[in-house]
């Protein structure tokens, strides 16, 4: 039932539950407001929005007064004007008149309102209260003098980010806001408060003093840095990004610090080089490009196209991925295109199907609404895909989703007050090496290595299979688990494996039973697990769990946090899957070597080491910094006859290249990505001297021309529209319009509906993209996978297979770091090595941005505080980490969230990293940790 309300003689109809403020906005009447924010609880404390309601003697706050039918509101009476003027005068009493030097000048609500509604002159003649300016975190600076006490920042920390890092202290006119004692703003969301703060009290340290807001041009775009792909607003001056913000009214009102500040770490090299006599010398672009085309042609002629390989980084756009495949797979006929140096290519038809099915089963954070249980598998969503993490917390009712959009009805005004965290009954179990952030009472953390997690989910699948077969009921959960655990490959009983007691013990047995039968289960699989060699086993198990639970009549929402950047785009466009080994058939055998289509980076490196891969094109990444088994990769890269690197910086690998070609940063290339949930998102490019069309296209054109092939696919827009037609994407948008939108599902759906069980066409984005394999390499065409995992018949077979230990990806991996038993040397202690990307709040991307002393700027080794205390290791102290393969020296970072018994060494820092220590991601690497010499004082 709609309610009629008249605001200043304009009548509108609104939904029950609409506030006067929102109704007024619908009626086109603007009411000034400061403490109200559409995505925070309603506070009603600034008192600027007071309005007159006919029949009520006192003025009412528009932000918190709900409309009732027939209500008559006046916002332009003298009484209202006086009240506004009084509030504004009071806000200015202690506010410095420093607008000319304030970073918020020009985008300050207070400034605007005083101009519009305030008095000309102040009458306060006394001394103002003052505070010292202070940096309250790596990205945020606080000037308390300017604070108007709206508490948006504190509400954000309490309700949205749950970081509780900034709060309100003291009372009355002594009130101030700031970090809680001993804390600073270090959550992955800290930058949001700079956008929330209506004045210049909390400002962005990266943007400070760079420009005036009115000099900035706004361009809608999407964030390329993690698979969530949030809609963003690029704010540029002279074409260059100076600041990234959220879009007004966006479905994603918050972005993480990586997305907000990560752009500032971009560096761009503009000069191509070629190697001559061991030295890289600068050459014009054309010379370099011709050289690439020539070398590729010669090598292909000499050794067949299989002797050419491509490795592609995770920040490639769909258009680049398509063009790369088109040129290398179709034109050059070499199928070996791998995606990132750590993602294993599917080795069998089975594995490819698992991957496809997983994409189709992929749920959304929002689907988790109503879950009574959630299983986090090596997942720390808040750190690895932050905004998805927030949505997850909101879906589970742990974080507030705010007061409602303008025009939207809101719940009980101020309902967020009954403590967002209290309201939810969901039980979250986090299984993994790290306690997920933010800690909450609903979360139980069971420390486990990734291998343990893979093993556990397999046991769960088996448990469920048994339940479905009706045999499981006879056994106790613990027994089933145990039986499988000991039978399970590669994870137990091996020398040096850390096996947490919880995973072994009965404790988990009862948990297994719970996850089998809970009403609605969310399974969130972390990016590091998805990006590791364990992935196929884990995906298969999760799908089997979904299938079995579905057969048992309970709901499951799987959510895979696909690695970084455009990982999902690469999967959808068939980069990884490529052509089957069998399919590449005769020619590969004829030439007697090379790598077949669908080979992953590891196979490529094996082939290179064996002299079978002679040319390698590396696009947009630094394999040396990102790979496992670095020594071997280095050797392989040295061995290839032709190494071409195209990347935005001259990284270590580029330093070895025979030809290096520059590339714009991901913020300078126009294109599209596919986000975690399957939307196509558009990326706008900032202006660089190299233009907004990826320099890859120029190179590929030269390569094609050298083959006498003309290509029109050398502009992002053209490729996009080509893909649109080819895959039958049901959308009108061109790339530009895509960037303006907030992402579009390729099937034209609004993406709003849907649940984890629906694997229909709805949310399958590049559904036809699997055809891409055919398109790009005219080989095996993928059948649309049957909805196999929904059918008990299928999973039964698979479950039996699992019972025999035949399914899953982690089969029989040897333990590389295992060593001869013997008493360990006294100073060295054994740990399980964990590696992966560092979380956002420690992100490598931000490392050069803030200049903050506590954000590691170079490689670090993270060790649990418990272990550190036992070994008397202190923060910053120099440690030597040694495995069977090698050793690195680096500074210790003490962690509250890492499991004892393990150390974490992140990928992504330049120079030797975990790749020196670990041979691969699927086996347990044992390392010894030793204190070396000086470091910080303990």
């Amino acid at each position, binding site marked *: 039932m709609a309610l009629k309300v008249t605001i200043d003689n304009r009548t509108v109809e609104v939904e029950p539950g609409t506030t006067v403020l929102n109704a007024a906005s619908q009626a086109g009447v603007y009411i000034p407001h400061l403490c109200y924010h559409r995505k925070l609880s*309603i*506070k*009603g*404390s*600034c*008192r*600027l929005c*007071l309005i007159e309601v006919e029949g009520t003697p*006192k*003025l009412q*706050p528009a932000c*918190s007064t709900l409309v009732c039918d027939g209500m008559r509101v006046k916002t332009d009476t003298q009484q209202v004007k*006086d*009240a506004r003027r*009084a*509030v504004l*005068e*009071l*806000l200015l*009493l*202690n506010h410095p008149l420093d607008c000319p030097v304030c970073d918020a000048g020009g985008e300050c609500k207070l400034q605007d309102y005083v101009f519009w509604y305030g008095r000309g002159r102040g*009458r*306060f003649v*006394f001394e103002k209260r003052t505070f010292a300016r202070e940096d309250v975190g790596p990205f945020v600076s606080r000037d308390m003098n300017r604070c*108007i*006490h709206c*508490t948006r920042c504190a509400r954000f920390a309490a309700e949205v980010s749950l970081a509780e890092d900034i709060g*309100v202290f*003291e*009372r*009355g*006119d*002594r*009130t101030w806001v700031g970090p809680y004692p001993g804390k600073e703003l270090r959550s992955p969301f800290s930058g949001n408060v700079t956008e929330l703060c209506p004045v210049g009290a909390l400002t962005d340290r990266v943007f400070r003093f760079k420009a005036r807001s009115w000099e900035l041009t706004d361009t809608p775009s999407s964030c390329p840095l993690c698979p969530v792909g949030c809609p963003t607003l690029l704010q540029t001056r002279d074409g260059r990004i100076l600041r990234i913000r959220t879009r007004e009214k966006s479905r994603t009102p918050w972005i993480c610090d990586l997305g907000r500040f990560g752009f500032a770490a971009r560096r761009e090299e503009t000069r191509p080089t070629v190697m001559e006599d061991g030295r890289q010398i600068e050459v014009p672009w054309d010379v370099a490009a011709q050289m690439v085309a020539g070398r590729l042609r010669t090598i292909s002629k000499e050794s067949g196209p299989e002797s050419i390989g491509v490795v592609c980084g995770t920040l490639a756009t769909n258009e680049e991925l398509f063009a790369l495949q088109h040129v290398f797979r179709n034109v050059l006929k070499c199928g070996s295109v791998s995606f990132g140096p750590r993602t294993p290519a599917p080795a069998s038809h089975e594995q490819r199907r698992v991957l496809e099915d997983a994409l189709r089963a992929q749920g959304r954070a929002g689907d988790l609404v109503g879950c009574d249980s959630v299983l986090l598998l090596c997942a720390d969503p808040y750190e690895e895909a932050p905004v998805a993490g927030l949505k997850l917390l909101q879906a589970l009712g742990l974080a507030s989703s705010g007061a409602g959009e303008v025009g939207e009805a809101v719940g*009980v*005004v*101020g*309902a967020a*007050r*009954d*403590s967002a965290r*209290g309201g939810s009954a969901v039980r979250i179990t986090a299984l993994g090496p790290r306690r997920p952030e933010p800690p909450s009472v609903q979360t139980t953390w069971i420390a486990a290595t990734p291998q343990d997690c893979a093993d556990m989910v397999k046991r769960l699948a088996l448990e469920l299979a048994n339940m479905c077969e009706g045999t499981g009921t006879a056994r106790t959960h613990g027994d089933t688990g145990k039986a499988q655990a000991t039978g399970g490959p590669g994870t137990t009983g091996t020398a040096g494996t850390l096996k947490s007691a919880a995973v072994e013990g009965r404790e988990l047995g009862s948990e297994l039973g719970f996850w089998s039968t809970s009403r609605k289960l969310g399974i969130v699989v972390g990016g590091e697990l998805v990006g590791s060699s364990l992935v196929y086993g884990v995906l298969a198990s999760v799908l089997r769990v979904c299938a079995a639970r579905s057969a048992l009549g309970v709901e499951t929402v799987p959510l895979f946090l696909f690695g970084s950047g455009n990982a999902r785009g690469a999967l959808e466009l068939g980069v990884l899957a490529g052509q089957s080994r069998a399919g590449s058939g005769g020619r590969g055998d004829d030439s007697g070597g090379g790598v077949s289509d669908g080979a992953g980076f590891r196979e490529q490196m094996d082939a290179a080491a064996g002299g079978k891969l002679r040319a390698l094109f590396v696009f947009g990444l630094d394999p040396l910094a990102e790979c496992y088994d670095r020594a071997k990769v280095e050797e392989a890269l040295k061995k290839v006859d032709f190494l071409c690197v195209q990347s935005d910086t001259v990284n270590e690998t580029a330093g070895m290249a025979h030809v290096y070609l520059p590339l714009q940063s991901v913020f300078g290339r126009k294109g599209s990505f596919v986000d975690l949930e399957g939307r196509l998102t558009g990326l706008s490019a900032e202006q660089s001297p190299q233009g907004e069309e990826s320099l890859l296209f120029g190179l590929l054109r030269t390569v094609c021309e050298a083959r006498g092939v003309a290509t029109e696919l050398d502009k992002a827009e053209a490729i996009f529209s080509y893909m649109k037609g080819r895959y039958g994407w049901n959308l009108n948008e061109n790339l530009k319009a895509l960037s303006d939108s907030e992402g579009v599902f390729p099937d034209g759906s609004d993406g709003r509906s849907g649940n984890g069980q629906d694997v229909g066409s709805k949310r399958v984005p590049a559904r036809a993209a699997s055809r891409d394999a055919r398109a790009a390499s005219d080989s095996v065409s993928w059948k649309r996978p049957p909805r196999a995992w929904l059918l008990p018949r299928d999973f039964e077979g698979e479950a039996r297979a699992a019972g025999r230990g035949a399914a899953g990806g982690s089969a029989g991996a040897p333990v590389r770091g295992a060593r001869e038993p013997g008493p360990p040397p006294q100073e060295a202690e054994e740990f399980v090595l964990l590696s992966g990307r560092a979380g956002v709040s420690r992100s490598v991307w931000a490392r050069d941005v803030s200049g903050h002393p506590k954000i590691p700027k170079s490689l670090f080794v993270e060790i649990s505080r418990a272990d550190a205390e036992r070994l008397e290791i202190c923060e910053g102290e120099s440690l030597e980490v040694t495995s069977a393969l090698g050793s690195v020296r680096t500074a210790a970072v003490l962690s509250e969230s890492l499991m004892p018994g393990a150390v974490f060494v992140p990928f992504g820092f330049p120079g030797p990293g975990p790749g020196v220590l670990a041979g691969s991601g699927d086996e347990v690497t044992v390392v010894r940790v030793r204190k070396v010499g000086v470091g910080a004082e303990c």
Partner: protein
Amino acid sequence: MAEKILLKNVGIPGSERLETYRSRGGYRALEKALRELKPSEVTDAVKKSGLRGRGGAGFPTGLKWSFVPKDVPGPRYLCCNADEGEPGTFKDRVILENDPHMLLEGIAISCFALSVVEAFIYIRGEFALGAERLERAVAEAEEAGLLGPNVLGSDFGLKVHVHRGAGSYICGEETALLESLEGKRGLPRLKPPFPASVGLYGRPTVINNVETLSCVPSIVQNGPEWFASIGTKGNTGPKLFAVSGHVERPGVYELPLGVTLRELLFEYAGGIRGGRGLKAVMPGGSSTPVITAEQADVKMDFDSLAAVGSALGSGAVIVMDDATCMVEVALGLTKFYRHESCGQCTPCREGLGWMVRLLEGIEFGRGSTADIDLLLEIASGISGKTLCPMGDAAVIPAQSTIARFRDEYESHVRTGGCPFKSAAGKVE
């Protein structure tokens, strides 16, 4: 007044002990309620008695109880407001320290009426003795089966928690009290929703003052008609008056509502100290507008005081003799409110500090006539525009003293100082 109801045990040795309270008829009302009455009958009795809240607003207690939704499943709570922080108010303290069992009995009966099984007493942090005695009383009552799982052997169970405040006046405001109880900053909440529907931990909650709840046993014991026969129409029952200031015998007096101010001051409180003349009275605590000596015949009840432009408030009668500087009074009290403002909303947070500085200016001879008008203007920018009623209360000292004693402000401005102070700064 011959019969004392609320103070009947005060002054008896060991009055705070259970045995004393029982020996004087205590807990019989609870027994009666449990054995003879239905919960709704208790509520009806309270309604019929005409009892109005003693915490300040004078809201009819039975009506407040009836706002609690009957059909909402899950817990509901009762909170006893024992934060007593209003300047001039010290009546609840007498009960807390001397007769805690009377309060507990009132709470138990009220909880029975409201189907509440968990109650909280939020006691002012500084009341160390009161808290200690209250806690002991709870323990004694639990031991004796008067509180706990089966009160007096019935199916009605009640857990009472005593929670000590941390020294903030605003936590006496009912919703700030709830926040504080929940472990948060004591900030008043937006209303609606009202606590009766969304209160403590989001549950329906009734909040009543100590004195209010202490009236309940005698209403149940002697019947609502008896209670209604005390006092005047619409203002029934006994009332504790905390008389302070320039009287010979300051203290807490129990008298029926409707007693005249003159009677209270001159017959009970011993008249004005040192035989001086009466100048002004704040009849209900620092949040009630001053009235002058000419109004001394006003009846001390909710409606009569409202009729003369003031209020009964908490019943704290602050008496000022003819040597009192009204600017100084306003300054002192405004300072208090400024200090106690929670700082949440703009007018109260910022405005009071400004008023204090203007008042200081006038009091110490730096003020101007324009400052007096500015004070009124600021006050009207605060009054009625804040989130909680404290904003209204906070400007009352300045507003009402200017209204009634503007000439005194003007003479400060004219003479460049306080006419009531000698050069040494002493009262004349």
